[in-house]
C-alpha cells in the first residue's frame, strides 16, 4: 500500500511496451489487470498490465484507424470503434473478436458503457444508438442535426450525454422513454462531462470557451480566456475540480463553495508544448497530464500549482489513463510505445 499520509508522490516507470501504432485511446479493465489499446492506424491490442513483466498482444483491428475503446465495467469484455464504421466487441479473456457490426455507414466516433455495464452507446455520424452489452440494439435516437463527437453516461447511468454542434443533448434512458433535454450554445461542443455529484454538465467548445450548466436550474456559465479549442475536460473524482485544457497549460476550476464564477482558476504550467491527454485519479485528487513535449506530469492542484513529478517519455504523448484503483497510469505515445507507471510515495 502506498502510504496515504505520505507528503508527496511520484510516478515510477514500471514497463515500456512496443505497440507499433499511434496510441489513440486506452481503457483499463475494472480490476486493473488488463488494458485495451486503440491504434490510430487501426490496430487493437490487449495489455496484460498486471503480469510480471507486463506484455502486449495485437488481437485485431479496424480499417483506416481505431477511434475509440471502452471497457465494459466488471466484465472481461471491451468494445472498439473505427473509421471503417465498425463496432467490435472483444473477449478479453480469450483475446478474441466476439462480434463486429456497423451501426451506420459513417465512422463510429465515440463509445460509452453505462456505469452498470448493461448498455453500450455508440455515436456514428449523426446517429446515437443504445445496445445491450452483447450488441443487440435497444434504441436508436433520432438523427441529430450534426455529428455526435462525444458520449458520456452520468454516474447513476440514467442519462446519456451527447456532444453535438451547438448543443449537448442529454437523453434520459431510464424506463425506456428516452426524453431529451438540450443545453444549447452556438458553437461546436467537443466534450460532454457530467460531474460525479450530478450537479453539473460541462462541455469544452470549439470557440475557445468552457460551458457548464447547473442541471437543476439550467443556468449556463461560460468560462473564457483559453488559447484555442477546449479539447480536454475532466471532473475530479469528488466533483470539486474541473480540469480543462486548450494548449500547454491545464486550467483547473474549483467548484467548492460558490463555485468558480468570478474566481481565478488554478493554472498548471510546466508543459512546453500542447497537452494532448490528462486524467484525474480515481478516488484521489491527483491529475496526470501528457504532452507533445514528451513530458508526463503529476499534479495535485488542491495543494500546489507546481508539478510534483515529471517523467520524460520516448515521444509525444497522446493518451493517459489511471487504473481504476488509482495506483497506476498507462501512457500512450504517438510513435507507438505504451508506458505503465506506478504511483509511489516518496
Amino acid at each position, binding site marked *: 500500500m502506498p502510504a496515504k499520509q505520505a507528503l508527496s508522490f511520484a510516478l515510477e516507470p514500471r514497463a515500456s511496451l512496443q505497440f507499433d*501504432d*499511434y496510441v*489513440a485511446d486506452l481503457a483499463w479493465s475494472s480490476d486493473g489487470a488488463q488494458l485495451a489499446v486503440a491504434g*490510430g*492506424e487501426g490496430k487493437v491490442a490487449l495489455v496484460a498490465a498486471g503480469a510480471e513483466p507486463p506484455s502486449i498482444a495485437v488481437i485485431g483491428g479496424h*480499417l*483506416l*484507424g481505431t*477511434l475509440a475503446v471502452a471497457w465494459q465495467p466488471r466484465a472481461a469484455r471491451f468494445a472498439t470503434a473505427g*473509421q471503417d464504421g465498425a463496432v467490435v466487441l472483444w473477449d478479453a479473456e480469450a483475446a478474441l473478436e466476439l462480434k463486429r457490426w456497423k451501426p451506420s*455507414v*459513417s*465512422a463510429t*466516433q465515440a463509445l460509452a458503457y453505462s456505469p452498470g455495464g448493461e448498455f453500450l452507446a455508440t455515436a456514428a*455520424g*449523426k446517429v446515437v444508438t443504445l445496445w445491450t452489452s452483447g450488441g443487440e440494439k435497444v434504441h436508436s435516437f433520432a438523427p441529430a442535426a*450534426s*455529428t455526435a*463527437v462525444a458520449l458520456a453516461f452520468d454516474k447513476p447511468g440514467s442519462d446519456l450525454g451527447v456532444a453535438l*454542434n451547438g448543443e449537448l443533448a442529454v437523453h434520459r434512458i431510464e424506463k425506456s422513454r428516452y426524453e431529451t433535454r438540450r443545453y444549447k450554445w*452556438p*458553437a*461546436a461542443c467537443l466534450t460532454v462531462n457530467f460531474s460525479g455529484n450530478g450537479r453539473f454538465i460541462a462541455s469544452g467548445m*470549439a*470557440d475557445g470557451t468552457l460551458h457548464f450548466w447547473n442541471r437543476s436550474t439550467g443556468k449556463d456559465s461560460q468560462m473564457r480566456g483559453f488559447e*484555442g*479549442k477546449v479539447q480536454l475536460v475532466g471532473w475530479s473524482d469528488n466533483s470539486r475540480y474541473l480540469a480543462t485544457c486548450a494548449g500547454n497549460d491545464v486550467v483547473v476550476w474549483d467548484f467548492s463553495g460558490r463555485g468558480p464564477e468570478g474566481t481565478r482558476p488554478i493554472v498548471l504550467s510546466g508543459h512546453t*508544448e500542447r497537452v494532448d491527454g490528462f486524467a484525474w485519479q480515481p478516488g484521489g485528487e491527483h491529475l496526470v497530464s501528457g504532452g*507533445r*513535449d*514528451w513530458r508526463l506530469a503529476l499534479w495535485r492542484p488542491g495543494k500546489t500549482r507546481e508539478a510534483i513529478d515529471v517523467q520524460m517519455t520516448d*515521444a*509525444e504523448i*497522446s493518451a493517459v489513463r489511471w487504473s481504476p484503483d488509482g495506483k497506476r497510469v498507462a501512457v500512450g505515445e*504517438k*510513435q*507507438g510505445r505504451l508506458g505503465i507507471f506506478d504511483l509511489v510515495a516518496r
Partner: protein
Amino acid sequence: MSVTPSRVPVTVLTGFLGSGKTTLLNRILSEKHGKRIAVIENEFGEVGVDSELVIGAEEELFETNNGCICCTVRGDLIRILGQLMKRRDRFDYILIETTGMADPGPVAQTFFLDDELKGTFQLDAIVTMVDAKHFEQHVDELNEPAEQVAFADLVLLNKTDLVDEAALARIENRIRGINGTAKILRTRNADAPIDKVLNVGAFDLNRALAVDEAFLEPEYPFEWGGVFELVAGDYLLKTAGEHDHHAHEHGHGHHDHDHEHAHDHGHEGHAHEDLELVLLPVAAAGGASLNDAIEPAVRAFALPATVVACHGGLEEIPGHYAVDISHPGADFHLKVTKPGAYALFCEHHPAEFGLKLQGAAIAAERRFASHHHQDDISSIGISDPRPLDPAKLNHWLDYLLKTRGQDIFRMKGVLNVKGEDRRQVFHGVHMMFDAQAERPWGSAPRVSNLVFIGRDLDRAEFEAGFESAVAKS
C-alpha cells in the same frame, strides 16, 4: 524536441455532379507517381474511387462565430484530417472532393481557422471541374457553378470534345469574367497532366503570385485584337456555320430569304446580335504595331458604329462597325484598296463565333481583359505603381473585410509598400487573411497588383479604397 515534418499539401476538388471529378481522381490515383494519397469524399458517386484510402465525410458546417459565413468551417474535415494525423506512415497528399453543390469557402477556411490543421496541412489549390457541355446552362440557372469558379485557382474545362470551339471560347470568356486569375486547362476526359493539378502552390506565399497580366490591365471595350498583312482585294469576314436562316424554323416547307421574316419569329437564342469591330491601318503586321493601335482603337470604339447587315460590306478603313451575327455563317465583305498592315479589334473574342477573315493570316494577336460581366460574381484587378502607406492600407483592408468579407470569395496580391524593400504578398478567403514580406524588389519595377473575386463588386469602390491607401509623398 519534437520534429515538425513539412506540411502535407491538400487539393480541394470542386465541380458539379457529372463534371468529371471522379474520373480525375481515379486518374490521379492510378498514375505511378509513388505518392501515398488519401481521398476524402463527400458523396460516394456511382463510379467508385479506386483506392482503399477513401474516407467518407458528411459535409458538416461548424460556425465558429455567430453564424458568420466567413467563420464557418467544416467539422467533418477537422475530425477526419485529425484522424489522418494519427498515422505514422504519413500521407504525401490529401485530395478533398466536395459535393456538386458544396460551397468551397468553408473547406478553404478550415485550413486557415483551425490551428491544429494549419500546422500539419497546407492548402495547395482549389481545382474546379467544369463540364463544357452543361456549364452555360448550369451557370444561368444556379449560384453554385459561378461560386465554384470564383474560388478556383485552376479550372479544368472538361469534356471539350462534346462542344465546338465557339462554345469553348464563350465558356472560357465567361469563366474569366467571373475569375480573372484562375488558370484554365482544357481536358477531354479529365486528362490533365497530374503535375498541373497537384502541388500548384496557389496558397503558398513564398511562390510568386502568378496573376494573368491581361487581367491587371485596364478594361478595354474589346476582348481581342489582331493584325493582318493584306494585299489589295476582296475579303470575306465570316462566322462559323452554314448560312441557313431557316435552320430553326422547324420544317417550314418554303425557302424564304427574307431576314425580317426570320427575325420576326424571335427564335430563342437566336435574337438579333451585333458584334462591334474596329478596323485600323497600322504601321506593320507585328505585335508592336498592334499595341500602338490600342489607343486609336479605344477612341474609335467611343464613336458611333455603322450597322452592317449580313452580307453587307465594311466600306471604310478606319471604321467602327456593328455587324449582325445573329445567324450562323454570317458574312461581311471587306474591300482593301491599299495593301498594308491592318488591325482588327473585336468586342468579343472572335473564337466565340468562329469569326475569321478568310484568306488572311493573323500576324499577331492579343487577348484583352473582359469588360462584360454576365454574372454577378466577377473579378476586379488593380495595378498601380504608387507606394502604399502601411497604416492606411491596413485601415482599408480591415474596413473592406469587415464590410464586404462575405462577398469577397478570394483575394490575392503583391503590394508596393512605402519604406519596405520587400514585396508584401497576401491572399485570403472571405475574411481569412495571410500576409507576409516576400523577396526584395531589387531592380524590378515596384508595382502593386491586387485581385478581388466576389459578388456584386463595384470597381469604383475598390479603386477609391486603393486611392485612400496611397502614400502621400
